C-alpha cells in the first residue's frame, strides 16, 4: 500500500512539474537580476486574451509575444516602470494585476479596507450590545433582592 502511494505521489509530482513548465520558453538572460525581474513582471502582467491568467502562465499567442517583448525590453535596459508604462499605453490599466490608483480604480483599492473596517465596527457593536444585555447593573433593586434570596435558599439546601 505504501509503495502504491509512493508511485502515485511520484507520478503526480512529475505531472505537476510538466504542466508548470509546459508554457515557458527559455530566455537566456545576461544577468540573474534580469531573470528575477522577468519572473516578477511576467507574473504581474495580465494576459489580455485569457483574462484570468498572467502572461507567465498563459499559452495564448499574445502572451508569448508579450513575454518576448518583456525579455527584449529588459535586455535593452528599460526600468520596470518604463516597461509597465509601455504595456499600459497599448493595453490599458487592464494589463496590470496591480493597477495604478486613480478615480476608476479607487473602488477596487479601497473596498477591502472599507469592508474590513465596517466588519470590525459591526463586530464591536454586536459584542457591546450582547455584554450589556447580561450585565447585573440592568437588574432593578427588587430584582437584586429576589436574586439574593434565591441564592441564599439554594445555599441553605446544600
Amino acid at each position, binding site marked *: 500500500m505504501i509503495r502504491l502511494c509512493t508511485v502515485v505521489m511520484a507520478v503526480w509530482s512529475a505531472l505537476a512539474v510538466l504542466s508548470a513548465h509546459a508554457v515557458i520558453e527559455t530566455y537566456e538572460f545576461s544577468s540573474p537580476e534580469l531573470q528575477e525581474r522577468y519572473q516578477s513582471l511576467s507574473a504581474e502582467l495580465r494576459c*489580455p486574451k485569457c483574462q484570468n491568467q498572467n502572461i507567465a502562465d498563459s499559452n495564448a499567442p499574445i502572451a508569448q509575444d508579450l513575454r518576448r517583448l518583456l525579455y527584449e525590453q529588459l535586455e535593452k535596459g528599460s526600468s520596470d516602470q518604463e516597461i509597465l508604462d509601455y504595456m*499600459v499605453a*497599448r493595453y490599458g490599466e487592464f494589463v496590470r494585476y496591480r493597477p495604478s490608483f486613480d478615480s476608476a480604480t479607487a473602488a477596487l483599492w479601497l473596498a477591502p479596507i472599507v469592508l474590513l473596517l465596517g466588519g470590525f465596527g459591526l463586530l464591536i457593536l454586536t459584542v457591546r450590545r450582547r455584554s450589556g444585555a447580561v450585565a447585573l447593573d440592568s437588574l432593578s433593586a427588587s430584582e437584586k433582592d429576589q436574586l439574593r434570596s434565591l441564592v441564599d435558599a439554594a445555599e441553605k439546601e446544600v
Partner: protein
Amino acid sequence: MAPRLKLFAPLLIFALLALLLFRGLSLDPREMPSALIDKPLPEFELFSLGGQRTLTREDVTGQVSLFNVWATWCVSCRVEHPYLQQLADAGVPIVGVNYKDEDAAALQWLQDLGNPYTVNIADRDGTLGLDLGVYGAPETYVVDADGVIRYRHVGVVDERVWRSILEPIVLELTASEVN
C-alpha cells in the same frame, strides 16, 4: 417594531446581491475599451501585402475608414469576410491589417474569397498589432480623417454590429468632417 424590521435585513442583502449579479450576467468582460481611443494611429513603416511598396501612417489615413485586423489562420475572419465585402461594395473604405500571417496565404485568400480592402498592410511580425494593442483577430477600428482612433470592436463584424455600433460612429465622423 425595530427588531421585527431587522428580520428583513437578509432579504434586503439578498435582493441587492441578486441585482448586482444579474447586471453582471449581461456584461461582457471581453468588451474592453482600447487604450488608444482618441489617440492617433501609431506610426509604422511596413510593406503592403505582396511587398511592392512601403506604407506609412500617412498613406492609409485621410478619410473616415475601418481598419480590420485579419489573418488566414483566424477562423472568425473567414466568418466576417462576406459581410466586409458587402460593406466595401456599399462604399465603406476598409484598410486591412494582415496580422502575423504569410503573404502567399493571404494573397491566395483574397483571390479565392474576394478583396474588400482598399489596401492591405502586411504586419508579418505583429509590430503594428502590438502598438495598436491587438490581442486577437479579428478586431476592427474606426479611424477618422485625421488618423485618430475612435472606436475598437473585438470580434466578428456582422450586420447587427455594423448597424447598431459602427455605422452611427462612421456617419457622425463623416458628417463632422464635412462641416
